[in-house]
């Protein structure tokens, strides 16, 4: 009997599919790296021909310019590095607040868009269609010059009840400055939070045990409020002193003063992104099959209950990925603050580039900052997405 030809002949490498795929990827990678190296080398040569060198030591030089709004102490005798930090904190403030507010507003708009009420539905529709079709820069400039700069001058400020001042130099809101017994009050707040959580846990356990869930969240919040109020009034003197805004000379003093630039960039970004978020939320809710809604009704859940307990958890799985993109868009769009004079990180970078001439280094830094922020945001959102995904058996 012949020896059966069971041994496979080796495939020559130029016909081996797996090898070819591998080789193609390696060659492509090498080409990309070569291209990047060529561009980088070209830039370095160009800079050397001009007599300019790359380096980051200039960040220790004195900045010499002032920044209008800052969250930390800064003066013109601080370094470029500190100026950059001020801009970075401003960007973070606008981005974080923007993300939170635009999500909240987006949910409202998205749910409104699905309402059976004709007026609510169509108002939401007009809102979304209008805002999605205007370039953000146009919206911001209009919002700033057409709305916030048109507020009355300081001498003729509008005074709303509660001593809120509206002027074109800023909106003054009553704020509180910590008094003597502020730390004592903070202890009471901590105790209130602890007690509220305890009450929540106990009630949830009790509800699970008896089968009838009481209003857990309301009771927890109530306990927290009661403890906080006790803490406030028990103190010999009020822990927070009222700081009311008032007009002084050219400007507003006291209270919390929000500049028109800050309000314009924040409200512009929030409103613009909420239109997109509304559509994302609507898509998520509509992705939940109708059977779920009918089953929830059959179980006796009312509108808001079914939304909260059945529809939203399932809708979230569809909402999270596009919502992540919108968050990243918002963070990057905050760089448009330069058009309306809000000192964010891009604006500060621009000034530093102009005064020091180091365009390449500074733009590399600011790009990394945006990249880092975006990566952290998407990392968190992807983790959350993983957590709530449907686990299939």
């Amino acid at each position: 009997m012949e020896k059966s030809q069971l041994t496979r002949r080796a495939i020559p490498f130029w016909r081996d599919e797996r090898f070819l795929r591998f080789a193609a990827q390696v060659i492509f990678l090498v080409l990309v790296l070569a291209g990047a190296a060529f561009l980088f080398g070209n830039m370095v040569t160009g800079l050397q021909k001009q007599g300019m060198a790359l380096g980051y030591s200039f960040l220790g030089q004195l900045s010499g310019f002032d920044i209008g709004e800052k969250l930390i102490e800064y003066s013109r005798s601080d370094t470029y590095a500190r100026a950059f930090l001020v801009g970075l904190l401003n960007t973070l403030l606008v981005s974080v607040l923007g993300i939170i507010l635009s999500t909240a507003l987006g949910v409202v708009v998205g749910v409104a868009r699905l309402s059976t009420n004709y007026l609510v539905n169509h108002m939401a529709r007009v809102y979304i269609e209008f805002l999605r079709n205007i370039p953000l820069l146009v919206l911001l400039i209009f919002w700033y010059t057409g709305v916030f700069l048109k507020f009355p001058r300081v001498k003729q400020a509008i005074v709303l009840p509660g001593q809120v001042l509206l002027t074109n130099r800023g909106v003054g809101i009553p704020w509180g400055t910590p008094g003597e017994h502020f730390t004592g009050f903070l202890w009471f707040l901590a105790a209130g939070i602890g007690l509220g959580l305890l009450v929540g846990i106990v009630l949830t356990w009790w509800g699970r045990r008896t089968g009838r869930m009481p209003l857990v969240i309301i009771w927890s919040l109530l306990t927290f409020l009661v403890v906080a109020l006790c803490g406030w009034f028990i103190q010999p003197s009020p822990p927070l002193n009222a700081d009311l805004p008032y007009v002084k000379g050219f400007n507003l003093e006291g209270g919390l003063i929000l500049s028109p630039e800050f309000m314009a960039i924040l409200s512009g970004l929030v409103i613009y992104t909420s239109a997109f978020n509304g559509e994302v939320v609507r898509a998520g809710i509509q992705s939940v099959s109708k059977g779920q809604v009918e089953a929830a009704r059959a179980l006796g859940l009312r509108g808001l209950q079914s939304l909260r307990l059945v529809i939203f958890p399932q809708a979230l799985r569809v909402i999270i990925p596009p919502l992540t993109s919108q968050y990243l868009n918002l963070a990057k769009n905050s760089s448009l603050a330069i058009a309306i004079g809000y000192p964010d990180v891009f604006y500060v970078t621009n000034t530093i580039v102009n005064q020091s001439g180091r365009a390449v280094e500074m733009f590399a830094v600011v790009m990394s900052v945006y990249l880092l922020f975006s990566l952290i945001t998407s990392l968190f959102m992807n983790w959350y997405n993983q957590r709530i995904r449907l686990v299939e058996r």
Partner: protein
Amino acid sequence: MNRKMLVFLSLVVAFTMALAGCTTPTATAPAGGGEPAPVQTVEVIKTVVVTVEVPGATAEPPKPPPPAGYGVTLKTVQERGRLICGVNSQVPGFGFVDSAGNFSGFDVDYCRAVAAAIFGDPTKVEYRAVTASERFTALQSGEIDILSRNTTWSLVRDTELATNFVHTTFYDGQGMMVPKDSGITTLEQLAGATICVQTGTTTELNLADTFAELGLEYTPAVYENPDQTFIAYAEGRCDAVTTDKSQLVARRVVLPDPSAHIILDVTMSKEPLGPVVRHGDDQWFDIAQWTVFALFAGEEFGISSENIDQVKAEATNPEVKRFLGLEGDLGLKLGLTNDWAYNIIKLVGNYAEIYNRNLGPDTPTYIPRGLNSLYTEGGLLYSPPFR
């Protein structure tokens, strides 16, 4: 399979290393000029004595090789057929674009003068409107050949930004504009005020310096371009706006109610404005510089676009003759033709004509000449001799 991949990978790596090793490292070559050709040793076999009549001319010493970068810009501009000039588009009188897309202004006319010197045709210019933030990067990268955008000469800019400042064409100072009904007349009254200023300018730094020196607090409201700055000021977002006095005069013209604003009688700094070129090309710098001097000299010699032909026909002063190219080869030394100065004055005008066309008494942006007059009239315009 793994063996094949490994072999392939090692081949690729070896290839890349060989490639990297073989490429001449241009990035590490000395930036300062080509080295002379390697010296060849030649054996002298025979010495021959030859007597030759040399007609009169003295032997010129061998010229050293010009530094790298010399002549590059002029050659690029001539090959391209037009000059690319970075200008302002938002300041009437200096650099402004009208609704038909035509650029006009004092700095724009300087660009036309350079084009006239190089091509004999002042229309061979392409204008690029650059903002204060991007003007230096545009110049450094070669996007524009020359920057003529009311740029202040400062030490940091001359060194850190790798630029060379051509002689000042307009001596200015920083000023402050306030609404007339605010009743403010001095800087001290602006304590605690909000002041609008443009980003990326020496104005921003001077404002900080001046107020720090006076010990006054203020809040800056900083914007990207002149339009935004003055809109915010007009809306009352800030109590005052600060920039070069020439710009204040020019921009006041386009405010909603020009007569409701006054420019304070304070000068906060020296602002010598002039054209800017890159480091590295001395010939281009000379061309830009001597164009400025040609404008001064034109006014000094009393030559204008109207009488230049007559002056050329009747010239007797040797310096004027050299200036107009009737004698000598001054233009050739610059790399241009000998009628470079003639073209400038005839086609664009001398300094006085350019000034009056853009900032003269008949224009809405009238600025008295002040320091911008000839040295013979108490000003600072002084041209070196044309020889």
